[in-house]
């Protein structure tokens, strides 16, 4: 492969900086720019993995640019698996840039983001799951997401998944031993015991899967839809949140006839907000379209902000909205708390209780009193969102958070398979049936950490790395 070069450390002034050159011509390029204190070229004959003291000189006029330590790492014993030269220089941005320019003039090409990693992967220096994490690191939208990807790269997820796999394997091994040596391995009452262990594993998997939503929400933002009857103050609320007049606000019901999308940052959380037309049974054709659109957005949302006018009695339209909400996490804003309230929290909860789809007992519903007009309750809203999605705080980057759809799917598959084992136990199936689904769970988890080789992933990584033909 051709030779690439880049500044390997950050593009900020710091004590030490590294310029990395990798590829079949790396030693040639390095040799072109590094001189010993006595002015001789030194890298071509340099011993691998040994630091050499010297200077970087401009290949055209021989001017000294910086005092450096240079190291040659011959492939495959390098990060990329190729011949690599690293020049450790002073960490000023200007100095690093000038050294890089020299390398480029000696025949290297500027590396694309992530290209060193790509080469490491293609040369087999990195397993699939790490390569995948590196792709996430490169593509991370913000610091938090980056933290999670780095966590994966360091193997935190691998550790957890490996541990779960170990537990599953123990159970299969026990069943198999009992099938082959019934004299020495007894399966009496084994099913009940296993069932309890499965509950534990299923719970852990669900928790991990749960973080996948958080992972996506952190990466991409929370899809939020504001619902409510016309003229309950939805648009005022949005304006209040965004701090400017975005939606048309009038006292005439049905002014917002389309949907509005805005992105709102609440501390670490990003809400992608869709304001919708008020939902009511209407004859107006244009308004009808808006209402239908609102319903459609609501179905795809992560989060519903249901605004209702606390000063007006609940009616059929509210019932309709609650049924549209289905099982989504919802914050009900009893708006216009500046006026005299006629709707109570109990009435709202009763309304949700009528909705069969709404899961009871979970913290998916919060009710707040606000006055969008006066800005009251906005901070509470922020807090409530955090409670609802991240249990009060956005977890530190140290916790395992699933940020890859592929991982989430594999976890779900594993979880589903363990549920099937539980089903088999409940149906009184013989123990030998358990192993089919136990093995499926084991393999699904193995795909996350590259212990089960998945050729689809190879294809995917190739396509993401945009490999040639």
């Amino acid at each position: 492969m051709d030779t690439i070069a880049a500044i390997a450390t950050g593009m900020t002034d710091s004590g030490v900086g590294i310029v990395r050159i990798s590829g079949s011509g790396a030693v040639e390029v390095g040799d072109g720019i590094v001189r010993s204190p006595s002015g001789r070229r030194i890298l071509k004959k340099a011993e691998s993995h040994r630091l050499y003291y010297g200077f970087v000189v401009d290949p055209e006029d021989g001017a000294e640019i910086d005092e450096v330590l240079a190291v040659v790492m011959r492939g495959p014993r390098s990060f990329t698996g190729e011949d690599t030269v690293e020049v450790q220089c002073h960490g000023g941005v200007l100095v690093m840039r000038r050294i890089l320019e020299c390398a480029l003039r000696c025949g290297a090409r500027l590396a694309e983001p992530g290209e060193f990693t790509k080469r490491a992967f293609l040369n087999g220096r990195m397993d699939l799951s790490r390569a995948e994490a590196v792709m996430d690191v490169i593509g991370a939208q913000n610091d938090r997401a980056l933290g999670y990807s780095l966590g994966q790269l360091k193997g935190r997820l691998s550790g957890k998944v490996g541990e779960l796999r170990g537990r599953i394997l123990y159970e299969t091994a026990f069943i198999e031993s009992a099938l082959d040596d019934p004299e020495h391995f007894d399966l009496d009452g084994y099913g009940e015991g296993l069932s309890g262990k499965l509950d534990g594993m299923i719970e852990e998997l669900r928790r991990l899967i749960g973080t996948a939503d958080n992972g996506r929400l952190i990466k991409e933002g929370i899809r939020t839809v504001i619902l409510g009857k016309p003229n309950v103050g939805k648009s005022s609320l949005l304006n209040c949140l965004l701090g400017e007049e975005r939606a048309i606000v009038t006292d005439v019901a049905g002014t917002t006839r389309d949907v509005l999308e805005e992105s709102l940052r609440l501390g670490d959380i990003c809400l992608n907000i869709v304001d919708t037309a008020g939902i009511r049974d209407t004859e107006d054709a244009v308004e009808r379209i808006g209402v239908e659109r609102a319903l459609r957005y609501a179905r795809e949302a992560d989060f519903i902000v249901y605004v209702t006018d606390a000063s007006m009695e609940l009616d059929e339209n509210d019932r309709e909205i609650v049924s549209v909400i289905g099982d989504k996490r919802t914050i009900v804003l009893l708006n216009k708390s500046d006026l005299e309230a006629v709707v109570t929290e109990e009435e709202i909860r009763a309304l949700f209780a009528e909705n069969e789809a709404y899961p009871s007992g979970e913290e998916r519903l919060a009710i707040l009193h606000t006055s969008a007009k006066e800005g009251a309750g906005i901070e509470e809203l922020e807090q409530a969102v955090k409670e609802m999605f991240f249990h009060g705080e956005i977890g530190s980057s140290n916790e395992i958070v699933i940020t890859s759809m592929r991982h989430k799917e594999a976890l779900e598959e594993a979880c589903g398979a363990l549920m099937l084992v539980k089903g088999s136990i409940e149906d009184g199936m013989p123990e030998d049936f358990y192993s089919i689904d136990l093995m499926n769970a084991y393999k699904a988890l193995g795909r996350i950490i590259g212990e089960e080789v998945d050729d689809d992933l190879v294809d995917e990584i190739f396509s993401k790395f945009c490999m040639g033909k």
Partner: protein
Amino acid sequence: MGLSKYMTEFREKVDVCVVGAGHAGCEAALACARLGLETVIFTVAVDSIALMPCNPNIGGSSKGHLVRELDALGGEMGKNIDRTFIQSKMLNVSKGPAVHSLRAQADKAEYSRAMRKVLEGQEHLTIKQAEVCELLWEETQARDVLDGDASGRNPSGSKKGYGKRVTGVRTFTGMVYECGAVVLCTGTYLGARCLCGESITYTGPNGLQAAAHLTDSLREMGIELRRFKTGTPARMDRRSIDFTKMEEQVGDERITPFSFSTDPDSIQKEQVSCWLTYTNEKTHEIIRDNLDRSPIYAGIIQGTGPRYCPSIEDKVVKFADKERHQVFIEPEGLHTSEMYVGGMSSSLPEDVQLAMYRTVPGLERCRIVRNAYAIEYDCIHAGQLDATLEFRNVKGLFSAGQFNGSSGYEEAACQGLVAGVNAAMSILGKPPLTIDRSEGYIGVLIDDLVTKDNREPYRMMTSRAEYRLLLRQDNADLRLRKKGYEAGLISEEEYQALLEKERLIDREVERLKGTSVGANREIQNFLEAHGSSPLKTAASLAELLCRPELSYEALGEIDRGREALPAAVLEQVEIEIKYEGYILRQKRQVEQFRKMEKKLIPQDMDYDGVPSLRLEARQHLKQFRPSSIGQASRISGVSPADISVLLVYLERYGRELP
């Protein structure tokens, strides 16, 4: 001994030589002869054809599967045990259908005699009592032996890199047999020695002559040999055993035959009993006190013994906290008073054996007819073979059975058939018979032998088969008969019978899925009577059959118009419907497996050119030369990370090709 010059001229030309007439040799020779090839089977003693030197039974957990698969392919073992069994039992019937397994007690002498009769009646087959002491071979240019594209042996299209070609065998008395293929089935006879405590004899099993010379010839050819050991318990005089202190183990009321060609009605007969008793603390104490006199623990035996068929010494050491171990007393035949003491094989000295056996209830006054002993023998690492059981480096040389590092009559017989058929196919220039892990236990057996570094005799076990819900003993014919037919070992008539069975199964499954019953009073009453919950809406008969409490037979009450179908058909129908979800999931696993099997690796793959393969993986890949990524992933010492390196390399390689 000097050979006269006339004898050196004595040559005969045949197609195939089979060395050894145990369970592997018999199947190999029969397969070749039945495919029309002139075949000679060599044995050191004609009286020992199909000898059962260890346990007096055929089948058992997972081994029963092997016998049925062998039968589906056209082997003889199933038919022969159907002729000669004296007790039969379907094991594990309380478990799922995947682990049901048939086991029959054989009349050993009858089994051997009946098999000999089959060999003697087989056209194109000659039995020869002689010790083969040398293989004849010639060097070939590495690539000049065409594999023949039709064979499919090398799906990547590259030629197999044989370096040698086998041309015949020489017997100890000097006779030369020229042939196109040799199948080695030497069992435990090569360089054998038997150990009973401190006393050692240089014989094969049962005091038979060992084969002392062939090993050297194999070494000269560059074949790597290793040493394994196995053992057998004592045989006792039935008259000295007190059966009143034991639990009687009787056979099944309705006997299931092994062979798909045997009419079940024709084999219902009086059966003999086996007996169950247990060891106790006293037994274990004697063993522990004398472990230093056991050749294994004293370090005299170098061979590695089977972990899964352990001696009583091993069991006492391994399961130190177990207060007792099972002991099965099994008759060796109808015309002998010898009884086999299952579960207590041992290589302890005679005096210790006697003391130990006499602690077991019912054996207090036992008299030993034959002592327990351990046997050590030369065998190969089967990694030198490919899936057809041919040596990768020697064209025309095949091997099967204990010589390949397996253990057990059934494992041997199955390899015998595969090696025999493929020896024949290589001469006939036809595609080989291969079975993969998703097609049969035989596939698992052979794949494990040729890809894994087995350090002890390999015994088949249920747990070794990943896809066992599909690989049931009841459907072995549906899985493999077609292969047997294509190989030429299954008759047109037998094949047509299979097709008819398949048709009946499909039709009945369709009918049950398509016939719905309403939630009417009759149905609800029926369900209530069977402890099943009432229907809310109409349901198909298949849906009802899925309920654990309802059987096909029970459903007859509400399914009056049904046609009478053979029991073997109904068994398939019931399993297919009852376990549909599980079967479906297992089939998906098989699809995943096949995907990797289809990712082929060129046979001339330069593993040194793949960067970042770990050294160990590189060595093993070069040694085993797997044909696919799937096979590579099962080789000992190759990690998933190595596999992903290979996948990425092959992907790149594929993409960078013009």
